[in-house]
């Protein structure tokens, strides 16, 4: 029980150890061996609203890019020049931290990527992205939770459970495996006595509410425990603005850096549906990208020693039209970019089988054509961070996806 013996709060331990704790020593986790000292973490950031990949990491070397993306195309010249990543791609100047990590070999991108979903509804697209199912439907569990649930019961990652950041739990991490919830709060805290009485009532009458409340109380105690500056905890807005993104990453990093903290987390950032006045190197999209960049930076800072074994992946339901629309924005599209950061990432690369942007090369004549499957990236991370087999990934975690092979060598 050594992994949990530092936990100050017995009730929390009770929740997180339900299911499997008895078998703690029956299985030696692949990465818990003393010899290699690795203690991997995985953070999934869901960007809801469809990220314009071509304005995030622009293919400046593609001769058709500037013409298609019009006034909002990134450029290497001018006041807000994009930051070159290699001879072909450059990143939006709102993301200097990502560019720095990229140069340091701790960030990468997979471009022209999409899930298996080919229509253009946000809500179905998000369902597919987060559920990991082959199509939209009444999904109630997410692939990240099923990955967690697929780990052997004694595994350290399974025992510490998942972390959901924000006032509601993102679908990607909903499911049977235990998940803590946490969001910045500024309401008065009720006396513990009341909380215990309500919990007792729920335990007798409504176990679903009991489990949820228990986790909420535990997460809050952990996050508020010690040196974290309380003034930083006041909500500074929802998760559709730069300050909120940075703040939620800061809190999540604190929870995850603890020895007994969750190894797996999900965050959802809203607001990427840029139909109008999207902006390029500056403006609305750039403000949001600045928030995402801030979140990467907060994780790097807050995770400290843990950063070296951490992988962060930012994913979105689909991309946007390659051609700028009638209102200096972009409409719903297909291929987009996946961003990877963290000390565990084999970085410094934009991984892409570039499809080109000529009219005949665009998907349905309008979108960046997808040449990589987002699931391949996610499978690669899950395989290399937590040792999940291709069989489990292709069946339990991403059902009916055996033909999508895990992308290799994402992790250093």
């Amino acid at each position: 029980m050594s992994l949990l013996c530092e936990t100050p709060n017995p009730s929390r331990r009770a929740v997180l150890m339900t299911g499997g704790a008895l078998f703690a020593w029956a299985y030696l986790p692949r990465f818990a061996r003393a010899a290699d000292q690795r203690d991997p973490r995985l953070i999934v950031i869901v960007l809801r609203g469809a990220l314009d990949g071509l304005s995030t990491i622009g293919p400046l070397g593609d001769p058709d890019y500037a013409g298609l993306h019009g006034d909002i195309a990134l450029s290497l010249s001018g006041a807000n020049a994009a930051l070159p990543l290699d001879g072909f791609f450059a990143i939006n100047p709102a993301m200097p931290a990502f560019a720095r990590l990229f140069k340091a070999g701790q960030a990468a991108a997979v471009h022209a990527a999409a899930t298996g979903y080919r229509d253009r509804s946000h809500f179905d697209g998000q369902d597919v992205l987060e559920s990991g199912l082959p199509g939209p439907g009444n999904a109630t569990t997410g692939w990240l939770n099923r990955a967690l649930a697929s780990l052997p019961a004694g595994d350290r990652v399974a025992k510490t459970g998942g972390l959901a950041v924000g006032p509601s739990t993102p679908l990607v991490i909903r499911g049977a495996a235990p998940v803590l919830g946490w969001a910045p709060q500024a309401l008065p805290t009720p006396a513990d006595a009341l909380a215990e009485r309500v919990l007792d009532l729920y335990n007798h009458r409504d176990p679903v509410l009991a489990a949820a409340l228990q986790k909420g109380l535990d997460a809050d105690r952990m996050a508020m425990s010690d040196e974290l500056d309380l003034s930083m905890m006041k909500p500074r807005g929802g998760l559709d603005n730069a300050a909120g993104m940075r703040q939620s990453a800061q809190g999540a990093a604190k929870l995850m850096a603890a020895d007994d903290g969750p190894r797996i987390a999900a965050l959802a950032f809203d607001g990427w549906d840029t139909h109008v006045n999207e902006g390029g190197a500056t403006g609305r999209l750039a403000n949001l990208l600045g928030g995402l960049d801030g979140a990467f930076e907060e994780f790097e800072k807050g995770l400290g020693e843990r950063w070296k074994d951490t992988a962060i992946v930012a994913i979105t339901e689909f991309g946007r039209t390659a051609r700028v629309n009638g209102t200096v924005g972009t409409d719903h599209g297909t291929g987009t970019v996946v961003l990877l950061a963290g000390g565990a990432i084999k970085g410094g690369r934009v991984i892409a089988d570039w499809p080109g942007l000529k009219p005949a090369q665009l998907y349905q004549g309008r979108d960046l054509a997808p040449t990589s499957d987002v699931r391949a990236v996610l499978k690669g991370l899950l395989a290399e961070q937590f040792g999940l087999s291709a069989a489990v990934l292709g069946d339990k975690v991403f059902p009916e996806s055996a033909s999508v092979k895990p992308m290799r060598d994402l992790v250093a």
Partner: protein
Amino acid sequence: MALSVSNAVPPDPALVALNRFGLGAKPGDDLEKIAADARGYLNAELKQLDVALVSADDPKNAGLLDSTAAIQASMAAAAERKASRDEKPAPAMQPAADTSDGSTEAKSKSGVPPVEADIYRDEAQARFDKALTAAPGFVERLVGFWSNHFCVSTAKGQLVRACAGAFEREAVRPFVLGRFADMLLAVEHHPAMLFYLDNQQSIGPDSRAGKRRGRGLNENLAREILELHTLGVDGGYSQADVTSFAGALTGWTMAGRKGRLGEPGTFVFDANAHQPGEAVLLGKTYPAGGMDQAEAALNDIARQPATARHIASKLARHFIADDPPAAAVDRLAEIFTKTDGDLRALALALVDLPEAWSMPLTKLRSPFDYAVAVRRAIGPTSGKEPQRTLRWLRALGEPLWQPPGPNGFSDRTDSWASAEGLRTRLDIAWQAARQASDIGNPDDMLSTVIGASASAETRQAIARAESRQQGLALLLMAPEFQRR
């Protein structure tokens, strides 16, 4: 979601009326009397004339602005803010402001809340006043349902913040017990919706304005009408339908501040921006025309079987269960089609569903419904309103008129029964209990608010509370108070 409470016993009819359909009990409610004729209690509210409207005769509402006045006030304030920004250069850290709608601005420099915040607060107060006094509140629940179905979001910018309340009063409330097609037409004509879903910027590429200015279509409104407002995502439309319908909708816009097209802030049809030629939607051709082209299309899709099913499933999910029984959905869809989308008939049909009275109360109150139920239960308090209730809604993740996307707030229990959600409810229950001015005996409150069907455990927990405040907070957290 599995529940331990026994599913065999049908719920107390008083709780079906007050919790499943209404907004919760108020001090003085007689639950036994309500239980004796619960259907009659609900139907009586549906028969009241103008029950869904915010009365202009009430002096409390005298200050509410119509959407034209609200939008003009916001336009003037935005122009003023821009002028003062232009006077002194913005600090280096300031994010680039979108000057067309001020969407990235929060407060004016002096710290005085902008005019939009005042309008929003007054509208919120009017919304809460209706919700706190309605009995049993079924009509207000329907207002909430349709307002979420046809949502706009203040996250879009200050202009929507200014007119979100007026939009609900003008485009939703008058039709909540009227005809679906009329509500659809009113919503899609409303400047708040045209602005929220970008249609005021969508220009027919072959129109005079399109050729002159080199701008073009924006599909946003057309797609969301088909996907969210009417047919539903599986409603059988294609990308070509979306594009063609977007063309038919070009020219539907809001007159700008300079009044070039008409009275600023009102709906206008701008023929110069309208895509010429015929439009094809779901296989039907709509001949070239003006505003009537998209109106004809809207009138047709309002009556599509897919629309009937989409609305029926959403209503059943809202009032019966997250995964409602197919028979209930079929029945509602049938009524929708048979009555040409008569929403009063649909509300009566909901009350008539046997499932409404037999299925256990497994849903959770939504954040708005929970906040309102708490305030109804505890009666008038000394706290500062409506700011306190607005703060509760923000903490619960569903700020008033600010859903994260055009699909509105989720209507499923698992998005509310989260760890963070429950912990926040506990904070709210505690805050409300501490601020209640006159608590009385929590046991008596239990009889008024939950009544005869309260579990032994709930009764015992409240009876054993160590203070009146704690007893009240326990009542507000009891499963019988949370579930509906």
